[in-house]
C-alpha cells in the first residue's frame, strides 16, 4: 500500500525542515499508519510503503523525490539491511532503521550498513521530529565537497579536453611513448585538478567518476584486502578529500562489491550479451545512474560499445581489482539479455552518481564520462552520443577491412601501461579479434567497430592478458556500456580466438571469463574498438583511447555534427 502525497514534490522549500520528504517502509500496517501520522504532524511530506521492493522502485523512479528513508529492519520481501545498502549506494539518501528489536548486534549491523540512525519501537514522535538533522548533515557535507571540487573540475575538464584534442599526440606512432608519458603526467595532474564542473550541478555529487576512479585505482594498488581509508587517501593524492570521505565511500564500495560478487554467478550466465543486446541501455543503466542509462538510446547500437570508449583515458583506467571488475561485470553482464536489468536491480544498482560509472568506465577521464555521469540529465546525451561517435570515428580512422575498422585499442600507451601492470599484450589479440570479430558483431553495426587489427598473432593468450588489462580500462570502451564491467568488454573486444565465433559463443566465452573471474581469452569478436592496433605502432598511436579517437577524428560524416557537439558539450560542460 502506498499512500503517496498528491503529486510529487520538488525539493523542499525554504521552510526546512518542514516539507521534508520522507519515505517510510514498514510491513506492519499499524506502524505504517502511526508513523505516517506522526511524520505529518512534524510537517513532513510522507510517502509510505509496506514493501521494500516497492519502496526501491519509488526511489528509483524519482531520484530526487525523497530526502530521507525510514525503514523497518524486518520485512518479508527484503531484508531491511539490504534495502539500506541499496539506498545508500544508489541514491545516497540518509536511511533510518527501525525495529522493535534493540539488540546491540542489530543496531551495530544497521550502522555498519550505513544507517544514519537506528530507532527502537515504539517510536515517539519527538524522535521523528529531529530526523531532518540527518538530511541537513548530508547536505553540508556534500556542499563542502562540491565546493572544494568546483575549482578542480573545470581545470580537469579542460585538461581532459585538451588532451583529447591533441591530435598530433595520439596520431603519430612515435608519439606513443610520449603520449603515454604525457598521459602519465596528466594523470598526476589530474589528481590535483578539479573535478568535473558538471558535478557541481548535482546536489549529491561528491564522488565523481574521476574521483571514484582514483579511489578504485588506489584500492587496487594497495590490494583490495589490505585497503584502509588512510592508505587510499594517501594514494589518491586528492588534497581536498578527507579520510572520512574515503572511509565512508570505502564502506559502500565494499558492500557493493560483496553484493556483486555474490550475484556475479547469476550474472555470468547473462554475460554473453550479444552486441545487439548491449544497447540494453536500461540495463546498463542499472549500473550507473538510471537516468544516464535511459539516455543511452537503444537506437544507438554502437553506443553500447563505444561508450566504453569513454574510458578512453587509459591513464585513468585503473586496473581495477578483481573485485572491481567482477563487480562491474556482473551488473552489465546481465543487461544485454535483459535479465541483466533485472539482476542489476536486484544487485546493487550503481549509484546514479559515480560508483557505477566509475566501475564501468574505468578510467573514463573524458569529461564526457564525467559529464554524463555526474549530471543527472543533461549529460546523458553526450554520453550516448559518444559511443556512436567513437565507433564511427574508429571506423574512419582505422582502415576498415571487411567492415572491420581497427579497433582502437586503448592506446598503445594505455595498453602498455596496462600491460605493465597486467601483463597485457595486445598484439595477439588483434589478430584473433580481427578474424573472428566483425562477422559476429553484426547486430550492433559492429562491423564498423571491429577495428580489430588482425595481425596475425594469436591473440588468445594476449586476449587473456589484455582482458585483464582492458577490463579495467577498456571496459566501457568496448562495450559502450560504461557499466559493463571492463572485463566484459575486454572479453568482447578481445574475442581473439574463435574464428567465426558467433556472438552467442562469445557470450559463452564471456561468461566463462567471468566465471573464472578474469582474463580469459575472449572469443568474442571485438565488438568494439579496442583491439586494434597493437601490432601497428602507428595504429596504436592513433587510438590510444576511444574517446580520444572520437575527439580526434573529426569524421563528421560519421556522426552528426550535433552529436559531436553534444559530446563536445558533454566534455566541456
Amino acid at each position, binding site marked *: 500500500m502506498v499512500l503517496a502525497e498528491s503529486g510529487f514534490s520538488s525539493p523542499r522549500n525554504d521552510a526546512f525542515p518542514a516539507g521534508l520528504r520522507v519515505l517510510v517502509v514498514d*510491513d*506492519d*500496517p*499499524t*506502524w505504517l*499508519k*502511526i508513523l505516517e*501520522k*506522526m511524520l505529518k*504532524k512534524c510537517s513532513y511530506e510522507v510517502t509510505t510503503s509496506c514493501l521494500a521492493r516497492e519502496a526501491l522502485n519509488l526511489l528509483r523512479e524519482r531520484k530526487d523525490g525523497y530526502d530521507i528513508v525510514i525503514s*523497518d529492519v*524486518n520485512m518479508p520481501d527484503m531484508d531491511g539491511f539490504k534495502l539500506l545498502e541499496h539506498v545508500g549506494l544508489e541514491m545516497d539518501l540518509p536511511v533510518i532503521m527501525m*525495529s*522493535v*528489536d534493540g539488540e546491540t548486534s542489530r543496531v551495530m549491523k544497521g550502522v555498519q550498513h550505513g544507517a544514519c540512525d537506528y530507532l527502537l*519501537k*515504539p517510536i*515517539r*514522535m519527538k524522535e521523528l521530529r529531529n530526523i531532518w538533522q540527518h538530511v541537513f548533515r548530508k547536505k553540508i557535507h556534500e556542499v563542502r565537497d562540491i565546493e572544494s571540487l568546483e575549482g578542480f573540475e573545470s581545470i580537469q575538464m579542460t585538461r581532459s579536453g585538451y588532451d583529447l584534442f591533441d591530435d598530433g599526440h595520439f596520431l603519430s606512432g612515435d608519439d606513443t611513448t610520449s603520449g603515454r608519458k604525457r598521459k602519465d603526467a596528466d594523470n598526476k595532474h589530474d589528481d590535483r585538478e578539479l573535478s568535473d564542473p558538471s558535478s557541481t550541478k548535482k546536489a549529491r555529487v561528491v564522488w565523481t567518476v574521476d574521483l571514484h576512479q582514483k579511489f578504485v585505482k588506489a584500492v587496487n594498488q594497495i590490494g583490495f584486502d589490505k585497503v584502509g581509508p588512510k592508505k587510499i587517501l594517501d594514494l589518491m593524492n586528492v588534497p581536498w578529500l578527507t579520510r572520512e570521505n574515503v572511509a565512508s565511500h570505502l564502506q559502500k564500495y565494499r558492500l557493493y562489491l560483496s553484493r556483486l560478487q555474490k550475484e556475479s554467478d547469476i550474472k555470468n550466465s547473462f554475460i554473453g550479451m550479444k552486441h545487439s543486446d548491449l544497447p540494453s541501455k536500461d540495463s546498463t543503466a542499472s549500473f550507473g545512474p538510471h537516468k544516464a542509462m535511459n539516455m543511452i538510446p537503444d537506437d544507438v547500437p554502437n553506443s553500447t560499445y563505444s561508450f566504453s570508449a569513454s574510458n578512453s583515458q587509459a591513464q585513468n583506467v585503473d586496473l581495477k581489482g578483481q573485485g572491481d571488475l567482477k563487480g562491474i561485470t556482473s551488473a552489465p553482464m546481465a543487461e544485454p539479455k535483459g535479465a541483466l536489468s533485472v539482476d542489476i536491480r536486484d544487485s546493487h544498482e550503481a549509484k546514479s552518481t559515480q560508483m557505477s560509472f566509475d566501475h564501468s568506465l574505468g578510467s573514463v577521464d573524458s569529461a564526457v564520462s564525467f559529464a554524463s555521469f555526474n549530471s543527472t540529465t543533461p549529460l546523458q546525451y553526450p554520453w550516448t552520443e559518444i559511443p556512436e561517435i567513437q565507433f564511427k570515428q574508429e571506423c574512419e580512422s582505422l582502415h576498415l577491412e571487411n567492415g572491420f575498422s581497427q579497433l582502437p585499442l586503448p592506446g598503445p600507451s594505455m595498453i602498455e601501461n596496462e600491460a605493465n601492470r597486467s601483463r597485457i599484450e595486445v598484439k595477439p589479440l588483434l589478430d584473433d579479434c580481427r578474424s573472428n570479430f566483425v562477422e559476429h558483431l553484426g547486430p550492433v553495426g559492429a562491423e564498423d567497430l571491429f577495428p580489430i587489427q588482425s595481425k596475425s598473432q594469436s591473440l588468445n593468450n594476449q586476449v587473456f592478458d589484455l582482458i585483464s588489462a582492458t577490463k579495467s580500462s577498456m571496459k566501457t570502451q568496448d562495450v559502450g556500456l560504461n557499466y559493463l564491467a571492463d572485463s566484459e568488454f575486454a572479453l568482447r573486444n578481445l574475442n581473439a580466438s574463435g574464428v567465426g565465433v558467433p556472438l552467442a559463443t562469445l557470450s559463452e566465452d564471456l561468461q566463462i571469463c567471468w566465471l573464472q573471474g578474469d582474463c580469459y581469452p575472449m572469443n568474442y569478436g571485438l565488438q568494439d574498438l579496442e583491439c586494434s592496433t597493437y601490432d601497428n605502432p602507428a595504429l596504436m598511436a592513433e587510438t590510444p583511447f576511444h574517446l580520444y579517437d572520437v575527439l580526434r577524428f573529426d569524421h563528421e560524416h560519421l556522426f552528426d555534427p550535433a552529436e559531436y557537439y553534444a559530446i563536445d558539450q558533454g566534455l566541456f560542460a
Partner: protein
Amino acid sequence: MDLVQLQRQFVDYRTSLYHEGFLDEQFTQLQELQDENNPDFVVEVVSLFFEDSERLLNELARALEQQSIDYKRIDAHVHQLKGSSSSIGAQRVQKVCIAFRNYCEEQNVEGCLKCLQQVWHEYSLVKTKLESLFQLEQQILTAGGSIPM
C-alpha cells in the same frame, strides 16, 4: 447516565487499563496524534492492530500444528506481533511475545504452545477492553460531550 458520569467512567476505565498494564504510554501517543484531520485515528489504528494480530495468531497456531515445526517462521511471526502490539501500547501482549521468542529459540514446543495460548488470551483481553473503551467514547460523543484527555 448523564454526560459527566459517562466521562468520569471513561477516564476511570482508561486509567485502570494503564494500571493493569493493558496499555502503556504508546496509547497516549496515539491519542495525542488524533486531531480534527483524523478524528477516528485511534480507532483506525487499533482496528488495524486487531486485524493484523488475528492474522498472526492464526499463522502461529497453524505453524505450531505442523509435524515438523519451523521455529524460524514462528519466531518471525512472534516478532511481528511484538512490533505490532508495541504500536498501540498493548503491553501485556508484548511481554508474552518476549517469552514466546525465548521458547522459540530453545525450540521448546511445549513452551511455545503455552505462550501461544497466553498471547491469545492477552490479545482477547486487550481487544475486549479497548472495544469497551471505544464504546464509552462513542456514548460520550453521542451525548454531545467531548472525550476527556
